[in-house]
């Protein structure tokens, strides 16, 4: 079995001392930011990108991945205990989880969240391992036109699934793609939109943009909102579930794992979407759906399993096709490119250490998270008593040093200020930053594939419709767009997202 020997190789990589250490650091940081509202994985990963440069690529990605799925574990803790979602993906956990805590079953809710996440994470690890090489084979048969259409589909879906107006989100995608055009044109060497600034000839700073739009803008928005953290009331109680609760949770965890695995692979999908999808499914399918709203364990088990599964399977498009499915994956692309690795279908063969090591580390990380979270829950809750006024200067300073250390150039610091103000403006106008970031990462790749495709077809745009893979992608994108323009479906999505957030 190839899979087993490959996984064995992966574990050999993941279990080296350095990688275990950084996986642990990633998981701990992930849990911490998951617990803390007001700082999410996107901001944290962009914050820590510069710090990982000194490490080998595999170690860097293992740690960054740990932050992402670690945040899914941590996010559930505050959702259950304080009715305060630490992450967007744990918003639905508050609905049933907090009710359970009010009923004195906080411990059981936390246990089911952690165990469900662990189960889902293990399944997702296997799915990534099994489907990775398979999809890579498929991806190798992709021509430039297919790639272009696939990326186009990814952009459309990321905009369709973003909160708020679809047209505005696509506008942000276009803005991101346009910003991606800044810098030296790869084929002719011409400087585009650089205004003679040498620092811009490599393009707009990716880390500056992510830190500004997610880090700085987020700090400002949090400062404007008055702090409303109710102090932890009530005890966690016994972590043990009753036999009945355990039995009720099993089918939900299974369904949540399935939903999360599928929605994670989807371009534009990810943890937030899948926890929400799973909650909707549980409310329709669960045998105990009449108990929803009063603290049903299914409403915790399903979504928590789903968001953890999705946070791992969303690596699949990145690892096999080189296409980021969401903003966090866009950051991973950035991290890989800075490390000198071009993400794409050749990564499995060219970087087996990275590919299999990352997959194995996910499972190792999940095991660590189980230990980090369950017995040490009290410590994480205490973290919430740190007031935000002590946190934001720290975040700010880390941003500033990190962004400076990229190229030892203060221009990057000023660029970040600019994107911070712009990000604040965007959030006031309800323009989503995440689609812009994905557009920014995909823009230059799309240009390259578009050029190649058109060169091959001698300037005939019909190539995008003649190739079956490409035509299918475009058709799905068209359907997704058309569906969103229909008032009924749009209303459904809006109310769904409004309930979720």
């Amino acid at each position, binding site marked *: 079995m190839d899979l087993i020997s490959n996984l064995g190789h992966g574990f050999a990589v993941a279990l080296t001392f350095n990688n275990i250490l950084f996986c642990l650091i990633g998981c701990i940081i992930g849990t911490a930011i998951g617990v803390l509202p007001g700082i999410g994985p996107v901001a944290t990963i962009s914050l820590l990108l510069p710090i990982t440069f000194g490490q080998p690529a595999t170690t860097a990605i293992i740690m960054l991945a740990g932050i992402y799925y670690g945040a899914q574990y941590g996010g559930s803790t505050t959702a259950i205990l304080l009715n305060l979602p630490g992450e967007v993906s744990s918003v639905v956990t508050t609905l049933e989880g907090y009710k359970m805590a009010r009923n004195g079953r906080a411990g059981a809710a936390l246990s089911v969240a952690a165990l469900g996440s662990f189960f889902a994470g293990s399944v997702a690890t296997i799915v990534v391992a099994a489907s990775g090489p398979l999809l890579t084979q498929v991806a190798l048969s992709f021509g430039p036109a297919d790639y272009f259409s696939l990326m186009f589909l990814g952009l459309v879906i990321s905009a369709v699934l973003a909160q708020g107006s679809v047209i505005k989100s696509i506008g942000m995608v*276009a803005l991101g793609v346009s910003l991606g*055009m800044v810098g030296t044109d790869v084929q002719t060497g011409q400087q585009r939109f650089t205004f003679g600034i040498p620092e811009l000839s490599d393009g707009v700073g990716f880390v500056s943009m992510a830190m500004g739009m997610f880090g700085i803008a987020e700090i*400002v928005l949090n400062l404007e909102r008055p702090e409303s953290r109710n102090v932890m009331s009530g005890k966690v109680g016994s972590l043990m579930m009753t036999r009945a609760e355990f039995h009720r949770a099993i089918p939900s965890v299974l369904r949540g794992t399935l939903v999360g695995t599928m929605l994670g692979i989807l371009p534009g999908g990810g943890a937030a979407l899948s926890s929400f999808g799973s909650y909707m499914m549980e409310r329709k399918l669960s045998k105990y759906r009449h108990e929803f709203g009063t603290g049903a364990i299914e409403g915790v088990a399903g979504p928590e399993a789903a968001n953890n599964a999705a946070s791992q399977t969303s690596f699949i498009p990145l690892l096999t096709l080189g296409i980021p499915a969401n903003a966090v994956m866009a950051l991973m692309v950035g991290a890989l490119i800075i490390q000198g690795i071009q993400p794409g279908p050749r990564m499995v063969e060219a970087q087996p250490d990275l590919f299999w090591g990352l997959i194995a580390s996910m499972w190792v990380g999940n095991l660590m998270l189980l230990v980090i979270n369950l017995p040490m829950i009290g410590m994480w809750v205490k973290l919430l008593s740190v007031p935000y006024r002590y946190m*934001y*200067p720290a975040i700010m300073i880390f941003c500033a040093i990190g962004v400076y250390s990229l190229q030892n150039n*203060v221009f990057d610091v000023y660029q970040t200020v600019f994107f911070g103000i712009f990000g604040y403006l965007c959030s006031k106008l309800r323009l989503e930053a995440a689609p812009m970031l994905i557009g920014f990462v995909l823009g230059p790749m799309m240009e390259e594939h578009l*050029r190649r495709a058109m060169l091959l077809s001698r300037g005939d745009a019909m190539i995008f419709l003649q190739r079956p893979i490409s035509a299918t992608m475009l058709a799905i994108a068209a359907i997704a767009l058309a569906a969103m323009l229909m008032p009924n479906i749009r209303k459904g999505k809006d109310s769904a997202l409004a309930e979720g957030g």
Partner: protein
Amino acid sequence: MKLNTKDLLSAGLLIGLAAIGLWLNMDHTMGSARRMGPGYMPWLSFAVMLGLGILVLGSGLFNGPDPIEKWTSAEIFSLIGGAVLGTAAGMLAAQAPGWASASWNPLGIGIFVGCMIPSIVKSWRPLFLISAAFALFGLMLEPVGLMAAIAAAVILSAFADETHTPKGVTGLVVFLCVLCWAVFIYELDIRVPVWPQF
């Protein structure tokens, strides 16, 4: 009319940026679809952006009302003042001899001044004090070193939150200096001046 102010402003932003982009893109050769020049893809993406901006504009006329928060005249004037004085300070610094005009310092001075002016108004403080602190960090880092830059940026940003106490800020500065030294200098060994150099 149900005007959606937020959408209209968003549309303005998208259309404005797209128009600027298309104008700047006139310098680049388009090439043909078969052999695309450097101007082809930017043209495409700016055109799409312009089109979407117009769509947002169209829908924004009807799907409101969604007004933005009312700005006080102090907020507006301080913002304009900041923009004008910030630009002026940046241009002056570029002309000045010595440190002020070296490398990116004019830009940093411009941003710093431009952000400090609106910070006079309390409601602007979270946004502009954080930005100003960031710019101050950039300005101070190379000449006086990391520790002084951290201290200055943290103290300035502390004014953005009224609940800060002098004691708390002092503690925070010390803590962050130690932490950043441990992480960035001791552990990661990044190339940055730590102490003022004389």
